[in-house]
């Protein structure tokens, strides 16, 4: 793609993402209807002024549910990204800076890359759901569980990219200068290595938000993520497929929002990558 088009893609992605994030964050305040309020007299309604997206089989307002679902889906995406980027960056920096750790950590990364991740995530969530929810209550525990499991199984690409960047930074003369003046390893990492690998970390962070949103939706769609009364985009899509022939909107809205968010995030990531790549500054 030409360079002239790229900033446009970045702006388009950023605007779209900002719009989705803002409306899901502020939406429940502006759109006053409660998420779980059932109104059996107004079941299965089409779009109207009172319910712009209609209501579901229990008379719950779809717009309110979609907005609330977005909070959870985007929240899971962002928090799982934090877990995965923190893990990946730590492992990548350690492997790039500490020579004797490089081999073992990269073998570990390879091992994780050859795990069948989707089945393992499904198993982990099913097995740990019941005991955790007894300890922390159903809502917090499933949220924490999903975030942890997705984060712990998606750090590998970040670790690889960061390690490569760290290795190239470690060969620069300013790192050698810092070393020769007796700077401690931790200080070199925070003052020289991390700032210079920033753009690579940001790009892989955007990609892992997108991947986490898709994974969470997949889990909810398979019925093994969030519980049924918990509105997330994946869950709403799953519930909507049962009424696909009569009320397609119920599956289309959450599905379209998942795809639009992922699309926006991918555009932002692509735009940031080209910005951070000095070869494109010419």
């Amino acid at each position, binding site marked *: *793609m*030409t360079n002239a088009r790229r900033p446009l893609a970045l702006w388009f992605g950023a605007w779209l993402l900002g719009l989705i994030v803002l409306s899901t964050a502020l939406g429940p305040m502006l759109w006053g209807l409660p998420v779980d309020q059932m109104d059996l007299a107004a079941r299965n309604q089409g779009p109207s002024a009172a319910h712009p997206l209609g209501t579901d089989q229990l008379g719950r307002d779809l717009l309110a549910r979609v907005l609330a679902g977005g909070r959870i889906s985007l929240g899971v995406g962002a928090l799982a990204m934090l877990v995965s980027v923190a893990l990946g960056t730590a492992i990548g920096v350690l492997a790039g800076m500490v020579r004797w750790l490089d081999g073992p950590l990269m073998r570990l990364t*390879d*091992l994780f890359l*050859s*795990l*069948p*991740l*989707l*089945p*393992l995530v*499904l*198993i*982990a969530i*099913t*097995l*740990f759901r*019941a*005991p955790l929810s007894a300890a922390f209550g159903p809502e917090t525990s499933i949220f924490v569980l999903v975030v942890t499991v997705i984060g712990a199984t998606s750090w590998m690409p970040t670790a690889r990219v960061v390690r490569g960047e760290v290795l190239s930074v470690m060969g620069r003369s300013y790192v050698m200068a810092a070393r020769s003046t007796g700077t401690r390893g931790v200080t070199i990492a925070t003052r020289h290595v991390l700032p210079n690998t920033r753009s690579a970390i940001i790009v892989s962070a955007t990609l892992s938000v*997108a991947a986490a949103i*898709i994974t969470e*939706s*997949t889990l909810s*769609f*398979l*019925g*093994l993520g969030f519980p049924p009364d918990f509105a997330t985009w*994946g869950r709403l*899509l*799953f519930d*909507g*497929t049962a009424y*696909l*022939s009569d009320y*397609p909107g119920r*599956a*289309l809205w959450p*599905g*379209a929002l*998942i*795809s*639009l968010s*992922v*699309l926006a995030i*991918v555009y932002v990531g692509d735009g940031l990558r080209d910005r951070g790549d000095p070869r494109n500054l010419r």
Partner: protein
Amino acid sequence: MLNYTIRRLTMALPTLLAISLIVFALMELAPGDPMARLPLSISPEVKAQMREALGLDAPSHVRFGKWLWQLGVVEPSVWIDNLFGTALAEGQTRMISWQTRGPVMELIGQRLPQTLWVVGLAYLVGTMLALPIGIWSAYRQYSAFDQIATGVSIIGFAVPPFFSGVLLILLFSVHLEWLPSVYDTTLQVSGWDSFTQQLRQMALPVAVLSLQTTAQISRYMRSAMLDHLGQDYVRAARARGVSEGGMLLRHVLPNALVPVVSVIALGLPQIFAGAIVTEQIFRVNGVGHLLITSIQANDLPTVQTITVLLAALIVVSNLIADLAYGALDPRIRYD
């Protein structure tokens, strides 16, 4: 090359062992009791006996060893017995599903053909579409065709299979009523009619899965072609008067295909994971469906076996990808 192959194979074995250990440990760590779902009227003594019968009273390392033995020795020898009529596995206990009380491998054997048909066809269709799209996108870079192909592949990434499946059902089953949305697994292909019916019911699942494959592989094909189209040997071929088609297919394509072949091999496990979702949407009773129902029913032996088989598939496709690289590109030497 032979040395490298042997070295790679010996590296694959510890990887597989480590993966099966992780899968086993995950099940061990999880609190949860296979006896928890039995009726309360069963007395503790009987429960203890059932535990013993299932081999659950042994310490975990013994059970891990037994499980590996069953997976690596007993099940293959049962398979050989079935093929050649020998009796290698006589007297050995096989892995038993807690759900059906039958051997796990027979359960998987019943479900595998459906999955293999859908996944295999999707992979074939996806790759066959991706290669020409990638080649033409690169040859006519920035053309309308290239832009559309780029757009479609971004959509292929952004629209996850569970949503593209829903969209296709809505269009082709609900609105146009051309194709069935539910896979009829009892259908026997016995003649022309049932064959077309089989094709029609496979169309949607295959389309969903191949969209993912096409989106990914066509990107790799495009960038690999672009890497080579700018090189001097292409200009030299043109200068000698080689036709454009001959230049593309006989000079550029073989070079550009080398990295793409390994991408194709590496994508195989991914499409199996995609099949878990697709089988759920279209209700194909394949291996992915078996996995989901076994997870829901807490049938640990079946879940463990399917997961390890998927891991083995990943390890094998990594192996194929590595070896293909060396076999296709004579410049690569592993010494």
